[in-house]
């Protein structure tokens, strides 16, 4: 019990736990769409492209989230326009923007003296440095993302499962696609301090991928994914505290272990299922 309660005497740990919990819910629920729509590469790219925005805010002394948010929304729109208007394949367009902007961010950061520590924080998260202002912003943005996912639930379901149906039902498909990109950008901003740029993709896709093993419908996939996300976040914070490893890797490693567990359970069930269905045929 002391093992769990001990760290709670520090305010920064409490804030870190709250931030990890919020991030766990928001990332894992939005991550369900990223997994189902095959947008993992896009999510990874968007996490990297916000770096120059974050660094600019950092150098100017603004809240980091402001720079990240501006850059994230610009990237979402930029990728949308590039793939709509040019003959480039989507992954090529994304790759070009992704690498270019990430390089710009690193170059900007290197202008500062203690470059390697700052870079490590941006790349791998600095959960234990979450201020109460950061926490408030994380909570507000997280709630906005969840409310929008809830409000547009059935439309996002249709554009994800059957884009042609979305067209024939005359849904505002362009608006919905851009909205989803912007929600991904905002979610990345929310998760920036917890996991950092380099590991962002894991917190977006790993809980959702795990949930896909054990669920049959989208709402239950979202709930299971959120539970895994929160659990990974909280365990990650404790691991970070006791093992003295950065928060990002701690959270991601926890999520990955749960994924492997889920994989084993699913494999076992499939084998049993195969035996059960083959048994009557053999009889």
């Amino acid at each position, binding site marked *: 019990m002391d093992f769990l309660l001990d760290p709670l005497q520090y305010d920064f740990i409490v804030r870190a736990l709250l931030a990890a919990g919020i991030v766990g819910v928001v990332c894992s629920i939005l991550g369900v769409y990223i997994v189902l729509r095959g947008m993992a590469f896009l999510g990874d790219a968007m996490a990297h492209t916000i770096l120059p925005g974050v660094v600019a805010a950092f150098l100017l002394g603004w809240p980091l989230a402001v720079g990240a948010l501006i850059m994230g929304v610009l990237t979402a729109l930029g990728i949308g326009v590039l793939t709509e208007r040019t003959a480039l394949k989507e992954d090529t367009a994304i790759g070009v923007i992704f690498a270019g902007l990430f390089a710009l961010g690193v170059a900007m950061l290197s202008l500062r003296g203690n470059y390697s520590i700052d870079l490590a924080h941006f790349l791998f998260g600095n959960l234990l440095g979450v201020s109460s202002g950061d926490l408030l912003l994380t909570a507000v943005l997280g709630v906005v993302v969840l409310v929008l996912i809830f409000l547009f639930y059935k439309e996002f379901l249709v554009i994800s499962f*059957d884009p042609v149906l979305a067209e*024939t039902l005359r849904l505002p498909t362009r608006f919905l696609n851009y909205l989803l990109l912007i929600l991904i950008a905002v979610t990345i901003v929310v998760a920036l301090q917890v996991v950092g740029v380099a590991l962002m993709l894991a917190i977006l896709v790993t809980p959702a991928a795990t949930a896909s093993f054990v669920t049959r419908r989208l709402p239950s996939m979202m709930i299971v994914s959120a539970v895994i996300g929160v659990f990974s976040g909280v365990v990650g914070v404790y691991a970070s505290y006791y093992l003295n490893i950065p928060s990002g890797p701690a959270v991601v490693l926890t999520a990955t272990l749960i994924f492997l567990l889920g994989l084993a359970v699913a494999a076992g069930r499939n084998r049993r299922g195969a035996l059960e269905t083959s048994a009557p045929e053999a009889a």
Partner: protein
Amino acid sequence: MKATIMRDTQAAPAHGVAHEPGAPTLELDNVWVSYNGKLSSGNGGASHALEAVTFRVERGERVAVVGPNGAGKSTLFKLIVGTLRPDRGRVSIFGHGPDGHICIAYVPQRNQVDWNFPVTVEDVVMMGRVGQIGLLRRPGKSDWGIVRSALGRVGAANLAHKRIGELSGGQQQRVFLARALAQEAELVLLDEPLNGLDTPTQEAIIAILDDLRRDGVTVLLATHDLDLAAERFDRIMLLNRRVIAFEPPATALRADNLLRAYGGHLHHVDGSGAMIVADDCFDN
């Protein structure tokens, strides 16, 4: 169906554009579509996917759209659904362009659906209601009622809670037809829905189309199966970038028409089955 009656009495439907009284269900007038300005190698150097396509389909008709691969069947369906615009000419559905209509249902080819998607059969059928329900609203009791009765009509009520990945080929087609019913579609396009189904299953799907016809639902179905097209459809559209023939089966499948539709493209015909069918028809 209630919505059909409402539209026929000229009252504007709650969503989507009104239907012009007396206008044909579907009318294409001199429609041209280019290949995005590109000359693709698979079409013999032709610059158009569709050329000068003109035809009319009346309410409740059942039309088989037949032609070699690359003949423009999918392009034609995209035009009618409204996801593609013609370079020239006009597409009208009940007297208006496709844009405002939510009464057009498209049943995709089976390989275009992600069968691992975490949705149940009733979730998929409910998707057909999303247009009528409207933004920011949840499905109500009446929507669930419509979904259940749609599943009942296609004989799939017992599948409601199955995950779509667990369905057989025939069940998959039933579910997508139920979705078209839930959408209250008056024009249903099916893209090769019968491929790979055994004969009894094909017959069961055709029986559902018979049921739709009683409600005045118009059906366009793309197929490679000339026998089926000849036996179970009111008219056959032979398509090869142009409309070669659009007539009742007896005249549409004359040898000269088939030669013009398939002649230079025999290597495009899928599988030996389709070739044998074509040979039978040449003997007539």
